[in-house]
Structure formats: structure tokens, C-alpha cells
């Protein structure tokens, strides 16, 4: 990651401006705006939070308290592939803990950490709404990886990429 200050790209700015007219108040576009940013650069740094605030006519703190309240937003960089493993009840019953431990060993990092090359990070997440196909794993904001099995970690890593 370079030290250059990250800014909103023109594409993301246009996507945010297209979202605003759906709501009576521009501020309502904030959650979607943060998703757009994160889809492009992986996290939402303070510099970009300020730009979004200006775009939506709210204070930077209004943006920051939303970024820090919601688990899906990251203020700091995560791995290029942020591997999110559900550890709630249905997934726990199907061996989610073993999957988390297996990923930690394989990647040499703990939950909440990033590999030195920035390629991967591991996160424990709460129920993803896929209990019938536990264990459920999500990479970044891609469609779910369902039916992950602790005894098939190779398969899982191939799908993660």
C-alpha cells in the first residue's frame, strides 16, 4: 500500500451521485456510498470519508461513526482476499472453529490479521444467513462459499483463490 492519500475515483463519485436521488435526504445514500468505495479500494480511509461527507453535505464524524459501527466496513486495509468465516450456531455445529484454525495455520496469521504480502486476512463473522449450507464463508463481498468443510481445506482455498 503506498503512502499516497487515497481519493474518491470519478467512477465511485458518479455512482454515489446516482444513488442520492433515490432518497428524500442525501445522507441516506451513505451506506451504499461506503460499499462503492470499499468495492474499489477495499477499505474506507479517513481521507475518503471526508470527501464523502462533503459530497453528501454531512460532517466527517457522521461518516466515521457509521464506518466504525458496521462490521462490514474497514477503516484500515484488510487482505486482498478477506476471508470471513461464520462462527455462529449452525456453522459452529458444522465445524467452523476447525476451519478458522486450519486457515490460521495455513496462512500463518491469526483472526484479524493480514498476511505480510497483503494477500489474505481472516475474519470471524456472525451468522451470514446460510445456515442450511453451513459452514458459510464469504470472501470480500462476493457471493457465499457454501458447505465449506473442515476436512476439505484445500477445496476451500482453491475457491478462495
Amino acid at each position, binding site marked *: 500500500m503506498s503512502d499516497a492519500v487515497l481519493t474518491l475515483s470519478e467512477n465511485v463519485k458518479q455512482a454515489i451521485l446516482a444513488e442520492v436521488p*433515490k*432518497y*428524500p*435526504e442525501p*445522507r*441516506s*445514500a*451513505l*451506506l*451504499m456510498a*461506503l*460499499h462503492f468505495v470499499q468495492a474499489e479500494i477495499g477499505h474506507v480511509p479517513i481521507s475518503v470519508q471526508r470527501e464523502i461527507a462533503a459530497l*453528501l453535505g*454531512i460532517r466527517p464524524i*457522521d461518516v466515521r*461513526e*457509521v464506518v466504525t*459501527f*458496521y*462490521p*462490514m*466496513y474497514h477503516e484500515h486495509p484488510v487482505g486482498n482476499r478477506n476471508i470471513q468465516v461464520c*462462527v*455462529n*450456531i*449452525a456453522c*459452529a*455445529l*458444522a*465445524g467452523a*472453529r*476447525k476451519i478458522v484454525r486450519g486457515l490460521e495455520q495455513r496462512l500463518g496469521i491469526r483472526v484479524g490479521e493480514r498476511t505480510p504480502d497483503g494477500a489474505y486476512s481472516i475474519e470471524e*463473522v*456472525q*451468522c*451470514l*444467513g*446460510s*445456515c*442450511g*449450507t*453451513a459452514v458459510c464463508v*464469504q470472501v470480500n*463481498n*462476493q*457471493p*457465499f462459499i457454501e458447505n465449506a468443510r473442515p476436512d476439505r481445506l484445500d477445496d476451500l482455498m482453491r475457491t478462495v483463490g
Partner: protein
Amino acid sequence: MALERYLLPPDGADWRSLTAYRQTGGYEAAQKALHSLTSEALIEEVKASGLRGRGGAGFSTGQKWSFMPKPGGPKPTYIACNGDESEPGTFKDRQILERNPHLLVEGLIITGHAIGARAAYVYLRGEYVTAFNTLVGAVEEARAAGLLGPGHCGVERAFDVHVMRGAGAYICGEETGMIESAEGKKGQPRKRPPFPAVYGLWGCPTTVNNVETISQVPAIVRRGANWFKTIGTPTSTGNTLYGISGHVNRPGVYELPFGTPLREIIEVHAGGVRNGNRLKAIIPGGVSMPVLSAEQVDVRMDHDSLKTAGTLLGTGGIVVMDETACMVRAAIVIARFFRHETCGQCTQCREGTAWLYKLLRRVESGQGTMADLDTIDQIGGYMEGQTICALSDAAAWAATGFLRRFRSEFEAHVTGAKCPLPESFEP
């Protein structure tokens, strides 16, 4: 009565496109409602059907609609459709969103007519990427076909549907937490009164209904309240989507009438407990609801029957645990969830969820005392009925539910100074 599905397509059928949905009679109910029923008549029909909300609380949908001000008031009115679906064990709305999205759009059009709404905002949990893309596709198709937008379905009033995404916070499934979030804020629930029907989205009158609730409406309009009431029980009418997960052979979502015996759902539809193991515990309606023991498996899955059994129907998300599962570990997983998801506004909830988790961990490790078990019960008591929303109550019910139903197993952790089921799943 023969089982008839009206929410989900048959296996293998693809109803996602407007063309396919129309071939099943889709949007006929919307045309009927908008062109031949007044808003009052529509609300009366839904009231008469006995339809109750499918989001967990089970409130009468028709009654909820009747709390809205008469159309033509000074402020616009809105539908906030709850697709946050974050209650662990619950994965049913996703089936509608991914497999039958036009059913929801049609339900929203009819609901919009009933309450005179300007627009519906469908709030989906941020992780539901496929559901979001599928629903947005359906909305765009409907708009292009004139079913949404100005002059929608050939009436003068404009009505549109917008789909928005949350970002991973369970509390945004709480109706006022969702409204705050949809306004671009932290999802901290509001004090009531005022209720959303008076002061909802952007301070305007708003009806909050779950995705499945709204998706029930087209069938009621098409077939009538009397038909709907023939399905289910007198106080829990219609089909519902039961999600079943955990230690069963065929986990999944099953559309069945209210009142279906829990045993039938587990043994017939879900193929029984895995490996021929013995059934031990069942969470009947998402982890917020107190757990049942195997002896209670003959209970029927409807609001009244489960209340009598000492729990609640909730979302109908059934989690099955077999004899290998440690009940303290199950309680830990759920307590950790609530500790993570408390929004932090109310002291009882913020502190209580943390303490429940800590105490359960201590009991599981074998370091706990009998006094700790009483403390869990006591903290649960402090957390109930004291807070802005029901997250605190749910956290308390879940923990004390496991403790009360499986007290001897908790005590065995204390007296044996270790988990008596070391081969159990890990929390």
C-alpha cells in the same frame, strides 16, 4: 388438506424473470388490488386472513397497516421492507429474494396501495450479494414494464421500489434500528412512542414489514382471506418458510403450513438427525428463542403451541442439535453473538451481554461455581424488559433458556471441573 406452495417455486423451476413469473399468474393480484379494491377493503381482507408478521414478533399485518394515517395527509408515507435477516438460524427470506423476487415486488405494490405509500425501501443485509442483484434486476424489469414508477400498473399514483444494503449489523433488523440505518446513521433503535406508523423513515409515517410477510399478500388477494384461513391453525394462518439447520440430514428451507409438528419437519422433511444420532435440543425460531429439549419434539410449530411449550415461534428458524453437542458451548456461541451485536445504548444490554458470555466461558472451562449458574439467571432477569429494544431480552432468554432446560449439564461442568462432552463441536 393437500400441501400447496405459493411462496417458493417447485424445485428446478426458475421464476426469476418477469416473463416466467407472469406465466404463474404473477401480477394479477396487483392488478386486482389496484383496480378493484379500495385501500380500506384491502386492509380488511388482510386483517380477515389472520396474516401475522413473519419477521419474529407475529403481529397482525392488517392491523399494523390500519395504524397508518389515511392517504392524502400532509406527509408522504413509506414502506420499509425488512430484509436484514440476521437472526442466526434464519435463512428463509433469502429464498424468496433469490428465487422469487417478483413475488416480493408484487406484494410491495399491493401494500403500497393499502397504505397509500409513495415508495418502498427494501433494506437487505449487506452480505446478501446474490439476493441484492436478483432483486434489483426484478425491480428494474418491473419498472421497465410500467409496474413501478409514475402511473404504475395503470393507476394515477406513482409508486417505486428502492433496494438498499446494510453493512453487517444485526441490530438493523430491529425496525427502528433499520430506519436509522436507512437514513444513513448508526443502527441504534429509537424509543417508542412515537411508533413508525407515526414517525418512521425521515420522520414520515412508515409501515415496517418483513420480506416474507409482504410476499404472503399476493396469494391472499388472489385467493381470498377465507382460502388463506383454511391453511394452518386458527391463530397462525397460512404457509410459512421454516428454515432447518444443524445436525439433520437435509437442512434447508421448507414451505409448510403453520402448525406442522416439529417432529415431522425434522424427521420427514429434513430427513432426520444425522448419523442416526439421538436428538438432544432444538432452537425453534432463531437463537433469540428459548431452546427446547428432545422430549418436546411433538410440539406444533405455530405461535400458540410454542408459547405453551415455554418458547416462541420467532422466525421459524429451527436449529437441531444431537447428543454430541455440549449445551454450554451452544450457549457460548449465542452469547458471543449478542455481545458482538449489542448497539451499546442501554447499560443492561451492553454490560449484561458481556457478563453472560464471560460467565458461560468460565463454566465451560471447568472453572465455574454453582453460584455462577445463579448469577447467569440473575443477570438474565436484570436484562429483560428494561431496554429500548428486545435484543437484551433475547440475549437473556437464550442464555437462561439453555441453563434452565439443561441445568444438570451445566452443573456437571462445575462438579466435574471440565466439559463432560469433550468431543462436542467447538464454540
